């Protein structure tokens, strides 16, 4: 089986590498539209001499043709050398990787919460499908799902930070000066926001696919073989319900990753999103490029993982792919 899966894995990897290259070109192109002099000016300020500009351009290698710079950048990027920030002069990888680590932890915590809560709620609803409680909760989920993300974040912020005062007002401060506990606490609200963003979608699809799976003839057939309801649910119903759910989880994980930009902003969380906003603001080309590429890589990895999970869940697709 594992050998048989090599081919689909290889095709997916190949396709995704192409995607990454295209993204890198577009990103690089957009970031380097400006003339090198303008880049220098936006970093150094208006009141600089021509010599200073020339010096800056030469130091950062901005005078080479775009294609050469692109190849130079992407080949270094591929081996983990993200270059030096043209603003601070520090290696970009330092900042980006710490932040990436933090933001991924945040996204993972949030998704874990959102997916787990969504599945539990969805399955519970499916078991009560058609009841009043089901109707109310489904309506509630719809309301949450239709709220813009910042509204959820602001609501949580108002209740838990401003009103109850359980969490620090500035997560960034806790990170710089707090102990481990204080740092851990800073994750709670942003993760909860991300989780709340995902949960309604997951819950609704989980509910629908569980209802469908429980109504399927093979679930009836499994009951009629005298299997326990547990076995019927886990081996027969849920396993097949997981398939449509998996693709929705994939979309939502991507959503969670992009959600870190919003929660960084809302909660002052010192993550990759905050750095992205800052680096765009300061004209820090290499940092911005590195962050965009990091997002792209993470999303591509998620897509591949979801694809493979779906292949694993669906033997028919597995045989077709091989």
């Amino acid at each position, binding site marked *: 089986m594992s050998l048989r899966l090599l081919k689909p894995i290889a095709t997916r990897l190949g396709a995704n590498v192409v995607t990454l290259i295209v993204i890198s070109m577009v990103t690089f192109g957009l970031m380097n539209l400006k003339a090198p002099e303008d880049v220098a000016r936006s970093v150094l300020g208006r009141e600089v001499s021509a010599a200073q500009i020339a010096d800056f351009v030469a130091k950062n290698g901005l005078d080479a043709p775009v294609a050469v710079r692109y190849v130079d950048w992407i080949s270094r990027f591929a081996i983990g050398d993200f270059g030096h920030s043209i603003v601070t002069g520090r290696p970009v990888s330092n900042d980006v990787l710490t932040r990436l680590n933090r933001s991924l932890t945040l996204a993972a915590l949030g998704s874990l919460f959102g997916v787990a809560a969504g599945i539990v709620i969805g399955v519970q609803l499916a078991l009560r499908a058609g009841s009043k409680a089901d109707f109310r909760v489904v309506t509630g989920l719809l309301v949450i799902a239709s709220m813009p993300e910042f509204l959820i974040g602001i609501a949580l912020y108002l209740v838990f930070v401003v009103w109850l005062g359980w969490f620090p007002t500035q997560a960034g401060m806790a990170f710089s000066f707090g102990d481990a506990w204080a740092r851990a606490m800073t994750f709670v609200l942003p993760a909860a926001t991300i989780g709340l963003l995902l949960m309604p979608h997951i819950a609704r699809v989980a509910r629908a696919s569980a209802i469908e799976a429980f109504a*399927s*003839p*093979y679930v*009836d*057939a*499994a*009951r*009629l*073989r*005298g*299997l*326990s309801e547990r*076995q019927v649910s886990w*081996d*027969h119903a849920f*396993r*097949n319900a997981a*398939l449509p759910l998996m693709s929705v989880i994939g979309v939502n994980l991507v959503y969670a990753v992009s959600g870190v930009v919003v929660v960084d902003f809302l909660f002052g969380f010192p993550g990759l999103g905050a750095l992205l906003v800052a680096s765009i603001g300061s004209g820090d080309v290499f940092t911005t490029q590195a962050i965009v590429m990091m997002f792209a890589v993470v999303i591509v990895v998620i897509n591949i993982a979801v694809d493979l999970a779906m292949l694993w*869940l*669906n*033997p*028919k697709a597995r*045989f077709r792919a091989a």
Partner: protein
Amino acid sequence: MLDIVDPRPAADPTDTAGSFDPPTAGLAIRGLTVRYGGPERAPTVWSVDLTLEPGKILGLAGESGCGKSTTAKAAIGFRQGSETVTGRSLLAGTDVLALDPLARRALWGNRVSYVSQSASLALNPAMTVGRQLAQPLRRHRGLSGAALKRRMLELFTLVDIPDPAVALKKYPFQFSGGQQQRVALAIALCCEPEVLILDEPTTGLDVTTQARISALLRSIVDRTRIAVLYVSHNLALLANLADSLAVMYAGQIVEQGPTPVVLARPRHPYTKILLGLSPRLEDPRLVPGIPGLPPAGAVLDDCSFAPRCPYAEAACCGAAVPARRFPGGVEARCHRAEALAGGGPSPVALSRVAIPDADPLLIVDQVELHYRGAPRPSVDKVSFKLKTGERIGIVGESGSGKSSVLKMISGLVAPTAGYMRFGDTRLDALAVDRPRWLCRDIQLVFQNPDASLNPRHTIRQILMRPLVLFHGKLPASERERRVRESLERVRLPAAFADRMPQELSGGQRQRVAIARAFLASPKLLLCDEVTSALDVSVQAAVLETIAEISADAGVAVVFVSHDLAVVRTIADRILVMRNGQVVEAQDADGLFTNPQEPYTRDLIAAVPTFDLA
């Protein structure tokens, strides 16, 4: 409920059907009644008595919606929703219906097994068949390790699955339909149950597959002495397989008894008509279809068949008709059974016209369809000619290429080689590129009318389409007249013009599709499995309609079906297809009396007949 049945003559050795004393083995169903909704609603199944004996197959026949599937599931205590089930179902003296849910589950798959219609749906698509077979064995028998493996191999061998060890590791979709049903059968038989319920187990499978599974079942029943309830709408199949036969109509058993007795001397008019409506290989004639539709539930204050019964009289209404016993161990619910002792309505041949000795209307010459990448052509050098008014049948198993031939003639796919001519025109273009008159002259009707009837249009709008499209400048009143006339021809009330397709039954929709095809005034009608999804009574009406209109207007017909007996009723000439090739072509009578090819003979032999000799 039991007092409905008249006391029977004291001693009759053959008298076992519906016996009062529950047997010590098998399953005795007594007074089984199923209601959806409150007591004000007519029961779906009413007071059913059936006795499943060890080593015997009891066939439960009836048309769709008569309650036979509901009966089968209710009898083993399987609930589908909010229905209330009353009555008893005794498994060796224990009432299955009185057991608590856990005790019932311990019986299922263990002492009582159930196989449903479509194995492709009943097997979990994401689990190997081996695991699905192992589950009940572990649970009910506590088997594991080598013993489990041995038993699984034994079971797959029992149901004739080739290479059992490899097969166990496969997923359901890696098997053919027939093999999937064998797998389902192996799972059902794994714990050596006393009772096996089969709900249309071979419906949708090819006749040859069907015949092989029937033979397998018979041998298993003989060997294991299992008691079987076999539910099917296919009376001919039951006639061949079942030891006794029960016929269900509107939730009641209207007749039951030993199969040979029921077939030789049906007592209930419905049984007679059902027998006459079932197409037979040895006789192309059918009894005329009966008007109307069965009621939604059991009718308790009249004979439920009265509105459609050709023999109904005043005495038939006003009270439920009790089941009465007749010699030979038969029970039937009809007042007039004695008076009607003779045969049922006599069969008549479908309308035919003499085929003029003219040039052929359609020439198909060495036509081939080879999809790219396919190992062999779907259609391989097929040739035939069709004259005006002639009706040709194409039979074959699934994958034989019979439908592809129609698709090419109608221009849905283009042949990869060969030549087709319609009148003086070459048929090489796809339908979209054909001139409008050609699209009018060649009409195609599909198996599933739902796919071709727009659900948002009324029947009138649907029927107006061909008139607007092909007979442009008709005045509105003339169009309306033709729509009404066409409904009349397919025996649908004119009031149906204002209905939506989904308000009609499947058979009625199929007749709308046929009416629409004929409204185009075609010269050639292509029918692709048009009656395959229909009950025999509706099938007869649809066949009559096609035959009548084609005879009246001299329309040539190509009738494709996997059902030889159906093709026999309507076709003048028959092509037998296999693996894309025509293996035999003969006139209809000749093909069945004197088949030339071994494959044709196998195909004919696989069709269940009522001939009990």
